């Protein structure tokens, strides 16, 4: 069968190649779709750290994705209207600079992940799934009913934010930026997986008692992983907001959490490139089935069901014929 590393290289090259080809042929929309896949895959890579490595089934990661999005929305909308966010005790102004926005998005979603994680990780199993879901809903309802930043209407940013040296409004340049971030984060996530911390994290998933016996604190390890995972989702949210030039509470809804999870599982839980493959399949299905029937979600549902029942290793598992190390 195909070796997973070979397959990963092929996937990576494919994802670089298709948009470049589309660029040459003037198929602008294909580039936009590829960018969307990259951004959603980035959120998936974040979730995969909690889900695949740490075995933490979180149904509330939309919260971090949305907080990242709102970090971008709030900063950029203040820059757009030239109204400072805060004047006392010291002046904070909005910004249209992507790197600054990203850093803030990562910090804000990290803080949220720390708070939610610290409470949620006191529980496990089904409790953990439902408490993360409920925290997600709490933030979702807050965003809808809080009028300052548009409530359910969300925030529109008319022009994409700036990145030094690039014209981000040109689709291929923005794609290149997103693809570079995705590649960097996948690389970091692979380093993390094979680091001492990554080993310890996987140990907590496989056997909690034994992990404790060797002197590690599973709670602390899980919490750190949960925060890293939330931070990556926050970054993905900020980039996604820039792709759409728009943020709204929909980013925070539990359907978003479900979709991010679907990307990971469709690709193959715990595998490095799973989120990219999963997001690609999902977006393409949405794109093509949507044109075939108004009731396309039935087919999407059936397909997902088939994957869960008959291909537990996801698509990558199917191609490499090796059962994923998830238990």
């Amino acid at each position, binding site marked *: 069968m195909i070796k997973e590393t070979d397959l990963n290289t092929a996937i990576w090259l494919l994802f670089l190649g298709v948009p470049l080809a589309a660029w040459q042929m003037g198929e602008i929309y294909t580039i936009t779709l590829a960018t969307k896949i990259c951004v959603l895959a980035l959120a998936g890579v974040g979730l995969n750290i909690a889900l695949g490595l740490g075995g933490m089934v979180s149904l509330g990661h939309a919260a971090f994705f949305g907080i990242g999005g709102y970090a971008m929305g709030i900063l950029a909308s203040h820059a757009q209207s030239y109204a400072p966010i805060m004047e006392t005790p010291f002046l904070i102004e909005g910004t249209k600079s992507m790197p600054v926005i990203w850093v803030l998005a990562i910090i804000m979603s990290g803080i949220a992940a720390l708070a939610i994680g610290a409470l949620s990780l*006191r529980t496990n199993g089904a*409790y953990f799934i439902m408490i993360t879901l409920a925290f997600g809903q709490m933030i979702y309802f807050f965003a809808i009913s809080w*009028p300052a930043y548009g409530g359910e209407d969300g925030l529109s940013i008319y022009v994409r934010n700036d990145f030094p040296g690039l014209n981000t409004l040109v689709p291929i340049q923005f794609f290149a930026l997103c693809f570079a971030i995705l590649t960097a984060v996948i690389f970091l996530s692979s380093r993390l997986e094979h680091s001492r911390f990554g080993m310890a994290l996987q140990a907590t998933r496989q056997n909690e008692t034994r992990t404790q016996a060797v002197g590690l604190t599973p709670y602390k390890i899980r919490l750190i992983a949960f925060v890293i995972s939330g931070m990556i989702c926050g970054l993905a949210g900020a980039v996604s907001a820039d792709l759409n030039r728009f943020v709204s509470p929909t980013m925070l809804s539990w359907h978003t959490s479900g979709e991010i999870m679907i990307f990971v599982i469709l690709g193959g839980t715990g595998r490095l490139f799973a989120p990219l493959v999963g997001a690609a399949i999902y977006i393409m299905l949405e794109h093509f089935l949507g044109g075939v029937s108004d009731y396309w979600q039935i087919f999407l549902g059936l397909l997902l*069901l088939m994957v*869960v029942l008959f291909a537990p290793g996801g698509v990558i598992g199917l191609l490499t014929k090796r059962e994923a190390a998830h238990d």
Partner: protein
Amino acid sequence: MPLALFAEQVLNGLQFGVMLFLMSAGLTLVFGVMGLINLAHGSLYMIGGFICAAVAAFTGSFLLGLGAALAGAAAAGVLVETLVIRRLYARDHLDQVLATFALILIFSEGTRWVFGSFPLFLDVPDLLSGPVSLPLGIQYPAYRLMIIVVGLLVALGLYLLITRTRLGIRIRAGESDREMIAALGVDIAWLYTIVFALGAALAGLAGALVGAIQSVQIGMGEPVLILAFVVIVIGGIGSVKGALIGAILVGMTDTLGRFLLPQFFATFMENTSATTIGSSLASMLIYILMAGVLIFKPQGLFGGAS
């Protein structure tokens, strides 16, 4: 504040709680016995509402509709259990979440395909339309009183079923040791199907009862599903008693929060922003309640160590 208004709001909270109990009882039973997280439970609630509306429109009888909703939801439960769910018991929670999420998509769009995109009509039976007079001068809708009664009867029925019958013994045995009761010769597959159908029927009943005073439409089950999750997390997953107490706690907190918080903020701030802030906070209140419970009892109020 007039006492009658407060008493009426308490009744409203109780009625909301009882309705949540009908949803959560099935969810918590299925989790307790089979260890399954079923996100599609809300779809069974929706199916109950749609079947009741369709049958009531066709026959003109709400009672027939209610019966059909119970039977239809139970049948849908059996179908789903034998085709899909039983393959998931041995899987981890992750696979269960994804598979039942897929079922939501199939059920929602399937229902839309069959019944169309517009909400269906379902009204309370004539016998129970209009209010009844209660002490303190309260006028309370008869139908809502009926929901409270039905809900409490179901709670009693479930209690008797679990403590007094052979099926109940098996259910309890299944909760404490799945392998053992299979070894003792109990037909475990059959037991699981029955429990799942029972949970589905309760969800269908709730959907039909509530459909008559709310609206029968696609996606009606999802907000209730999430509240039901909150309920069983507070009560302790797997505990029917916990579900009852959790449901009433959530019902009361939500109803009284929506009612009292804006008034509380209005005592020290301008009216419009008090309403906005009070309502925003009220919508998050049950989640705050849940977080509070889990800080002190990570397994919920009545949850055993799992």
